[in-house]
């Protein structure tokens, strides 16, 4: 996993609630057996016109936001399916941080596994940040994971909460599977005692 300590860049404002994973990446992109290259499908329905040309009204198609590294959006972002393709598509586009009042649980986990940082802030702070993001390319945001702060273009800092373990993995770019496999001995002894107590746990047939 790619580490993330700090991030500075333009933030794209997308004040919509309940942005679901079908909107983030529709089904036609799910037939891939790879993790890469999904950025082109990000927000497909909103981003492209019927003839495949860019919808100029969509935020990420505006000149100021084409290189956005941060997305500021509404409540319950990433709800719906568990498709990690949603996180892959956002990351592949170049956005590494999403800020919203809340996220769906599965999307939240998926994003962190891919070196992304998701930040939860209260709605009034989101409204404030959205307004500033609307200034476009001149509005630079910076995020510092170590101190858990977002600094907005107006210089105000907003502190966010994050689990220690998640933070540690992201700051250091750790491979969680390798970390877990280091605990092989405890997994094995857990397995044994459980199977002794509950033999029915092994499927019949």
């Amino acid at each position, binding site marked *: 996993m790619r580490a993330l300590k700090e991030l500075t860049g333009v933030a794209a404002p997308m004040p919509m609630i309940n942005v679901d994973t079908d909107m983030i990446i529709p089904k036609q992109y*799910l037939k891939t057996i790879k993790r890469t290259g999904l950025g082109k499908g990000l927000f497909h*329905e909103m981003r492209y016109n019927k003839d495949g040309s860019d919808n100029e009204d969509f935020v990420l198609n505006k000149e100021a936001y084409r290189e956005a590294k941060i997305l500021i959006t509404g*409540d319950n972002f990433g709800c*719906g399916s*568990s498709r990690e393709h949603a996180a892959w598509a956002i990351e592949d586009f170049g956005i590494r941080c999403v800020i919203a009042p809340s996220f769906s649980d599965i999307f939240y986990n998926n994003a962190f596994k891919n070196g992304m940082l998701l930040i939860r802030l209260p709605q009034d702070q989101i409204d404030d940040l959205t307004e500033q993001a609307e200034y476009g390319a001149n509005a630079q945001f910076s995020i510092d994971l170590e101190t858990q702060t977002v600094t907005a273009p107006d210089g105000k800092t907003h502190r966010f909460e994050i689990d220690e373990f998640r933070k540690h993995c992201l700051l250091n770019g750790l491979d969680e*599977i390798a970390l877990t496999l280091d605990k092989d001995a405890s*997994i094995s002894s857990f397995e044994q005692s*459980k199977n002794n107590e509950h033999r029915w746990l092994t499927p019949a047939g």
Partner: protein
Amino acid sequence: MPAKTLYDKIWDAHVVSTEPDGTCLLYIDRHLVHEVTSAQAFEGLRINQRKVRRPELTLAVVDHNVPTTDRSKGIDDPDSKLQIDTLRDNTEEFGVEYYNEQDIRQGIVHVIGPEQGFTLPGTTVVCGDSHTATHGAFGALAHGIGTSEVEHVLASQTLLQNKSKNMLVNVTGKLAPGITAKDLTLAIIATTGTAGGTGHVIEYSGEAIRTLSMEGRMTLCNMAIEGGARAGMVAPDEITFAYLKGRPKSPKGDDWDNAVEYWKTLHSDEGAHFDTVIEIDATTIAPIVTWGTSPEDAIAITENVPDPKNFQDEHKQSAAKRSLEYMGLTAGTPLTEIKIDKVFIGSCTNSRIEDLREVAKIVEGNKTAAHVNAMVVPGSGLVKAQAEKEGIAEILIQAGFDWREPGCSMCLGMNPDRLQPGERCASTSNRNFEGRQGSGGRTHLMSPAMAAAAAITGRLTDIRTLQKTEAPV
């Protein structure tokens, strides 16, 4: 011992280790795998030269991509074929049991797990699919995971998790005749909102839940995720045990007896703490349909399309406006005047034998409306065979329904079954998101009975009025 909830009990029985910040390594007893979210996980194992830790706890099936027409001659779409072939190759290479598209046990992953007795009370169940919540109907802790987590579970049989909060949805009283688990689950989401369950695991309890069949409980828990919850669950009881007894992968002999003895301890203790409690009166629930593009846009069939002006805040107002535009609806229109083009009966929410029996009861002796194209996609090969044996298939075909091979089908339209832009569908699935059933397609979620009624009249219909006028006296 402090009083524990059902969720607390299952959680505590699966913690392998705990990080200083409370993040736990949770043991996973059952892992279901399908073709869309697993290829990159197996690839990760290969790259890192890792094995599947316990292949016997893993069961794979193909469901999302398969066409629902005759599959004996192979699969046309090259991308679907590649994904399906990749799953076959991966399960072979890593020694995982796999039901391919020709196998009678093949079907939607959340239908086959319970059907095979793979899903059991008190277990932790995961799958790279958000509707894994379905398995909570058995008193299992079951939830969807992403592909990186699929890889983590394959490699280690564990998952890194933070414990969720406890939420109780207590449904008092009985559902009125004609009202089903689908109406109940939609009514609950309409009450809590799609984010209402975020960060929680829901336990459903109360009289209305206890009298639900396993099929009904699965429908209920299936949509826990639509309410934002990590999982939904129902404490196991005699109905659960009766369903599981004798299934191919259920425990046998002494193991069965020991299992049942343990399963009987799986309920929330008196006085256990719930962070959030919701009370619902089952007797007030009418048949429910959705009008918008979020499952929380669910109202009684007797109501009118709502006016965005009446929503509480500006975010909700603009979401409602966008929904109405997308759905091609005008505020104030009675729901029962909305004409439909298609009917889809299927998906992991409502494609089990009980659902099909329900549909058959309503359509028997009737015909689908001339302008309506209606399809039924059974949840598994075994459901299909059972329905054919009971004469259900014949009734449906006589009524003008298209009778298909099992799979996810038009629930998400990854295979050729899709809505065309602007087409309106009465659907028994679980998501009415924009484009979900096909780009530009318009989905109204409802129960199988309501979808059957809509198929006959050609418009959204209150099942209770249909029963009054068309049922033989």
